[in-house]
């Protein structure tokens, strides 16, 4: 009988394992795009129960310092993206299996449905000076810095794949959150276009 309850996080095998390998492809001696698959990432969906949106905001603010405005993200150790009315997507890196889910259920369990999506969503980090130009081949959203500034997030499509887009920093660095089953297709779409600008896959 196998032993129970050791954290299995190290055994996680994401959809891009073995695909997102470090490489560098330059165009005219330069790379305009960086791609990274951070891991392991914890992602938890939170949707307020009926009439509990104020409770949700208050507890989130108390625990994490800020309740982000709609279509914005906030938070450092736990990043909270306000992706739909009364709905948050919460992200953290380097947590044990189920830890973020447990933390949020403890905090919000009576006020919100808390659903672990850590394995159901894949995070791809897209950066580099040409990141916006690349994304313009997919999304119809205006990503100009004065319109879509740091912290902004949006639900959009890239190459027919539904993606949650979050601008982490002005660098620019975008976090793309995609349904796991489409992660490889999105990866192929990104790399297919990154070749025009030169790219580096960061290990």
């Amino acid at each position, binding site marked *: *009988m*196998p*032993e*129970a*309850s*050791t*954290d*299995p996080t190290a*055994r*996680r*095998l*994401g*959809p891009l394992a*073995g695909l997102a390998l470090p490489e560098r492809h330059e*165009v005219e001696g330069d790379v305009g795009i960086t791609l990274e698959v951070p891991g*392991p990432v914890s992602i938890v*969906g939170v*949707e307020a*129960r*009926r*009439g509990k949106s104020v409770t949700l905001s208050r507890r989130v603010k108390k625990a994490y310092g800020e309740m982000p405005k709609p279509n914005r993200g906030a938070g450092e150790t736990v990043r909270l993206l306000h992706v739909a009315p009364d709905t948050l997507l919460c992200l953290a890196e380097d947590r044990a*299996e*189920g830890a973020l889910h447990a933390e949020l259920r403890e905090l919000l369990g009576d006020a*919100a*449905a808390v*659903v*672990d*999506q*850590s*394995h*159901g*969503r894949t995070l791809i980090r897209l950066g580099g000076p040409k990141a916006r130009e690349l994304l*313009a*081949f*997919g*999304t*119809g959203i*205006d990503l*100009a810095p004065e*319109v879509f500034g740091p912290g902004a997030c949006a639900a959009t499509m890239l*190459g*027919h*794949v539904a993606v949650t887009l979050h601008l982490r920093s002005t660098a620019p660095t975008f976090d793309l959150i995609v*349904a*796991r*089953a*489409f992660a*490889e*297709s*999105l990866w192929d*779409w990104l790399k*297919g*276009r990154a*070749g*025009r600008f030169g790219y580096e896959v960061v290990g």
Partner: protein
Amino acid sequence: MSGYRLDGGGRIDRSRRLAFRFDGETYGGHPGDTLASALTANGVRLLGRSFKYHRPRGLLTDGPAEPNALVELRGGARREPNTRATTVELYEGLEARSQNAWPSRGFDIGAVNGLLSPLLPAGFYYKTFMWPAAFWERVYEPLIRRAAGLGRATHAADPDTYEKGTLHCDLLVVGAGPAGLIAALAAVRAGLRVILADDQPEAGGRLLARRAPLDEDEPLIWRDKVLAELRSAPNVRVMPRTTVFGWYDGNLFGALERVADHLLAPPTHLPRLIYWRIHARRALLCAGAEERPLVFGGNDRPGVMLASAGQSLALRYGVAPGRRVAVFATADSGYQVARDLQAAGVRLAAVIDPRRDGEAPAGIEAPVYRHTVVTSTRGGRGLAGAQLLDKAHGRSIALDCDALLMAGGWNPTVHLTCHRGTKPVWRDDLAAFVPGETGDAFRVAGAAAGHLSTPACFASALEAVAAIGTELGKPVPQVTAPACPEEASEVTPLWWIKESKGKAFVDFQNDVTVTDIPLAAAEGYRSVEMMKRYTTLGMATDQGKTSGVNGLAILAEVTGRPIPEVGTTTYRPGYVPVALGALAGPHVGPEFRPVRRSPLHRWMLRQGAAMIEAGAWMRPSHYARGEEDWFAAMCREVKTVRGRVGICDVSTLGKIDVQGPDAAEFLNRVYCNGWKTLPVGKARYGLMLREDGFVYDDGTTSRLGERHYLMTTTTANAAGVMAHLEFCLQALWPELDVQVASVTDQWGQIALAGPQARAVLAKLVDGLDVSNAAFPFLAAAETTVLGGIPARVFRISFSGELAYEIAVPADYSEELAEGLMRCGAAFGIAPYGGEALSTMRIEKGHPAGAELDGRTTAQDLGLGKLLSSKKDYIGRAMCRREAFEDPERPVLVGLKPVAGGKLRAGAHLLTAGDTPSVEADQGWIASSCYSPTLESYLALAFLKRGRARIGEELVVYDPLREGLYTGLVCDPVFVDPEHERLHA
């Protein structure tokens, strides 16, 4: 001068020579040339044959309006017909062929059509190919298609890639001529986000082809200063080789960027074309104007071209349009062209001007004939001379010339402004249409607005940008336009030279002559739209850019109406032809849509799975071993599951997390069966109806906690059911406190089925008691497996065997599969695919996609007992309709062949002795399979009064495949009808 290349000047790189081929002959040119300019430089003037009369044709224009010089560009899979040689940038190795010419462009048998032309008037096809009707498809249409010209498309697959994208800006400037450049400059200085799109490889517009100074210097010096400032600004995107071809609702523009069209083949990673959608808060059209041809006898002979085209040849490409060049001008701009040519070293033969008034402008070193017209031309495949009529003196003059430039006035490029329904407005002073009122979001400046002098172009552009800046809250600083000399720009229209001899063409591309228009009018086609369709004037690739205004002016004259009353035809997007590849974009072939991959995708491939598409998903059909084909593999897999134990990926099933205090009530409303009594830790089969009472979807839903359920759906309907649930919660019952979330991707799930399933599971779990007593059929538990991996275990079965489904967070899926294979090795465990799964569900009589096809009811499927009478649910009101209770309705039965043989889905059922007919039809086979368990074909069928006909022998009618044979009606559950294995 070698050939027609001038010794100096032009925007070409004379230090580099490019070799290219036209109709198999090799020629040379320079970077900066177009195919048309390079051919002209080589003395090639005959570029193709016309569409109807197969007359020799040369180039008419210097740009996208070109009606004559259409070629097939490139060869093989990249062959592109109807490419305008005037827009093709020359590259090393270019290959092109002329069109409409057989056997060669020099000698064309079709030219006999010209001799037959009295028999080929406007509307010829409509008049001739009318009867007998049966001839149309078989005789007339193939005949017409072969005779009709234009190029041949390739049948090979397109080797290039295409892209689509979206851009946003405060101001889109269409055209980078003088007006567009100064507009972009002013807007950029004001801090607006600007896109400057221009169809040419370099900015400048007509500045590229004229000598008139700006700021008392060469015009391109000013242009370069502007471009340098634009390039250094962060808020402008300059897009050369980009044609804005359409204006759509919401101030959305369509633009085509030719990324690699000027190269032999696109470099790796680059698309050939990009189709851009440009969202512009404001747009400014600075697209300039197209020059008008003049309509006189023989005006289509190679060597007769627009004055602007001749000017471009000489000044932009350094090519003499001819060795003796005459200019026929009804507009002052013709004199400027004559002077520019003269300065470039081109010998002038004469300037011919029908106007009688005023002094001829000075500085022309050639005879200037006032009050004179050209009545005909002569020459074989190229112009040799023109016949003039001096109307002042009533004398005829024979003029030797090998090029004749027509300056018939200017048509502002109004097309984009018309794409949303605005009609252009006639201006008598310009003898042209100018854009109608298009509102603040889309303004027009420069020649496109009817400003024909350069100072007026600059002024109108600056005025427009100033207004835009004010509207957008970004005041535009003072921008000074460069000083430029005043230019005469008077036009006296002369729509057709009535003294003409020989064919005088109005529409060169469609071979419409000046006599076709009165004929159309005489036959009743007086409306300009009818005239277009009857004569074909204004159709095809150029869409009447050079012919339209001349044609309707002539129509106005012959019908005795003013031009504004005749109006124009409707200008629709696109302004230029847009390749179908660009419309399709990148999503073709394997990229047609993204692929959904199970978390076990790569594991299954390693096990030898043959994958097939199931919607967007890839699913395994079977796992072949050795030489097995799919059938042998399926049979082995079924026997493994029925005899020992097997595993199957079921991760693709839809999984929906349902939470909240009202979750049970919610399930009660969306399913037709009851949910209030389901205890925590149990699963139940659920059947979902549509509002119209038909079956929508099915699956098992488990209660994981007091207020927490996990719903599963079929793979095919997963997204639809999720949307349906969200609609129910948001629109139908917002009072229910329920939250739903798709967790399909979160869990990797494997079915473990077969008599040894429990033994395997016991080794896998971290201590869960899986005995039959502790974990009976339809039990559900949250636990861990393989030493700490969170898992959900359900005892449910699709195969009919003792079976479990084990779900783990998806990143552990491969570990789960490996663990199951390890734990089951001693029992002979093997993975099984969709073929085996489908066979087993038919053996077990489980309805699936072929039975839940949207036309069947719960009663049809034998699931009528699930319809609760104690509660309301979606579909309840409609599922008891009279027709649903009709005993004649076909219901689900099983079917076996009587004397061996196959059963095939799609076959119909007949009562023995009946003749096949729609009236005699008793039902149909929905699914069929070969059952390795029963060693027979089996089928699930829908049969009228089916349940009363168990044991009856029917005729199976399958005319496409097996013909007629006999089948025995039986219970749909073929294997283990007492369901003992499920509960074992």
